[in-house]
């Protein structure tokens, strides 16, 4: 059964009702991914982990009748838009199909329909675990997006944190610039792993996480993770094994993003399903039995 959604720690005011048209401010390369910036003049500021449903105003459906549905995309960065009086929303995009493909090609000045911010958000370490001293953020691939906003929020609020980012190879290091300071250098709390070893530690991001979980580290509190299903499952299992609380931002195919379609079902331990759009996208480790490609 669909349980009552978790309370949203720190969640802002509700999303404006309906979709609204936003201007594309820019679309830039980010290590093989794209960062598309939209100007939102109506919505509240999103919390880390929240997402929007996005659809290009023009050319949506141009690829043999697809894309048809809007795409659920986590927000990676947000800041006040001095010129327009709204907020700028940055989305990290990887062109994997007709929807993300069209969004990756979008040009400044075009329009994008958005609905949101939607879903819940990451909780603070103390909200997850009263004794938690800090946070470890573990991201991979395009899933680093919500962790970029979370890292920024933790920095602003003085929450001790470390960031572990895993990438496959040189061609897939998108979004790394979202973790750079104003000088352009990678923030000092960020550690990299790459499977081809071209940067950072050669191996998987879980290889960086394991010694932290296994060690007696006072800054360890709560693990926050987002990335491909296999990585999420590895992080979830490691945290469960070491008794460390974790929050996972999951992905699922969604038609609507606001609880209408019941399409984004995630199996609950013990039976039944959650609706990822309204019960998530951020779930506690114990809310998921096993992260699977079937819904992620």
């Amino acid at each position: 059964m669909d349980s009552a959604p978790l309370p949203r720690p720190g969640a802002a005011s509700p999303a404006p009702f309906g979709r609204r048209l936003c201007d594309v401010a820019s679309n830039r390369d980010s290590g093989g991914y794209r960062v598309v910036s939209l100007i939102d003049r109506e919505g509240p500021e999103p919390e880390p982990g929240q997402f929007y449903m996005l659809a290009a105003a023009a050319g949506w459906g141009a690829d043999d009748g697809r894309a048809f549905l809007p795409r659920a995309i986590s927000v990676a960065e947000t800041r006040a838009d001095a010129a327009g009086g709204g907020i700028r929303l940055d989305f990290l995009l990887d062109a994997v199909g007709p929807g993300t493909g069209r969004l990756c090609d979008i040009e400044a000045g075009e329009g994008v329909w958005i609905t949101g911010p939607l879903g819940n958000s990451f909780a603070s370490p103390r909200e997850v675990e009263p004794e938690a001293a800090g946070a470890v953020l573990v991201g991979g691939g395009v899933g680093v997006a919500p962790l970029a906003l979370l890292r920024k929020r933790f920095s602003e609020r003085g929450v001790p944190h470390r960031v572990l980012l895993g990438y496959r190879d040189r061609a897939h290091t998108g979004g790394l610039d979202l973790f750079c300071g104003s000088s352009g250098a990678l923030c000092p709390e960020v550690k990299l792993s790459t499977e081809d070893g071209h940067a950072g530690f050669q191996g998987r991001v879980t290889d960086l996480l394991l010694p932290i979980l296994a060690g007696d580290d006072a800054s360890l509190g709560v693990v926050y993770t987002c990335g491909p299903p296999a990585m999420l499952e590895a992080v979830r299992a490691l945290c469960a094994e070491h008794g460390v609380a974790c929050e996972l931002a999951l992905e699922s195919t969604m038609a609507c993003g606001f609880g209408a379609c019941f399409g984004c079902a995630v199996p609950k331990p013990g039976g039944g399903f959650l609706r990822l759009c309204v019960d998530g996208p951020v779930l506690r480790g114990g809310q998921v039995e096993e992260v699977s490609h079937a819904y992620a």
Partner: protein
Amino acid sequence: MPELCGIDLATAVINASGTYDAIAARQTFGDALLDDFPFAAFVSKTITPEPRAGNAPRRIWETPAGMLNSIGLPNKGLDGFLAEDLPRLAELPVPLIVSIMATTREDFARCARRVAARREVAAIELNISCPNVHSGLIVGENPSETEALMDALRPLTEKPLIVKLTPNTADPASVAAGAERGGADAVSLINTLKGTAVDPATGGPALGNGYGGLSGPAVRPVALEQVRSVRARVDLPIIGMGGISSGADAAEFIALGAAVVAVGTESFRDPRAGSRVATELESSLLSERSSEPALDLD
């Protein structure tokens, strides 16, 4: 003002069952949902006698100008719905239509009786795209099964009974005729068309359940033809639906004899699609009227 089985409606646009969870939408959008509710009546998700968890993922798959779904009617069951959801749905500013489904006439009767007894409920929609476990027949594929179900339910309530027809049968108009003989007050059509897809990543079925139902603009011509053929056969009011995403689409259904239209999949793309379709429909009907030659000159 549009009217359906004696229920006054502010516009001719309602929602298709199973495509809008007003409780979740209110949680997401706040009370702005109530201030600007997109439909002239609200049709609930289908309620079954016992709770259902729904189908295993993956549940949805995008297709050209549409989507497949195999949601599997997740719901709290009759008791849970009446206790928890109905009071919250009654806060909506529009009449409430409750969709029910069961696999025996006895269970259907139990659901209909208990739902009809609630004053919050204006009408009941019967989802008959399901088997009768005693006969093994899909009720909505069979005119005599449909008529027999109506014979069992009609004496139980004075409230309007709307039969939701399935398009997955050779002759929906004859099923509509069976519903009419059994005393239905209206028919709604179409439900989704059976369909499937293969996931190119695995070579296997894209949906966890193996197949699903197709909706969206891709099905609109099929829906229009079914509305036309049902209109030709029965006198009941028709709630027309299937791929409506604009007022112009809705006007096609009205032109073929639908009294009211329903918006379904388009609400996924645009949570306020119902309001937009209603506004567009009104202006298209107005411009049609104004372009008619004025005959009564005296």
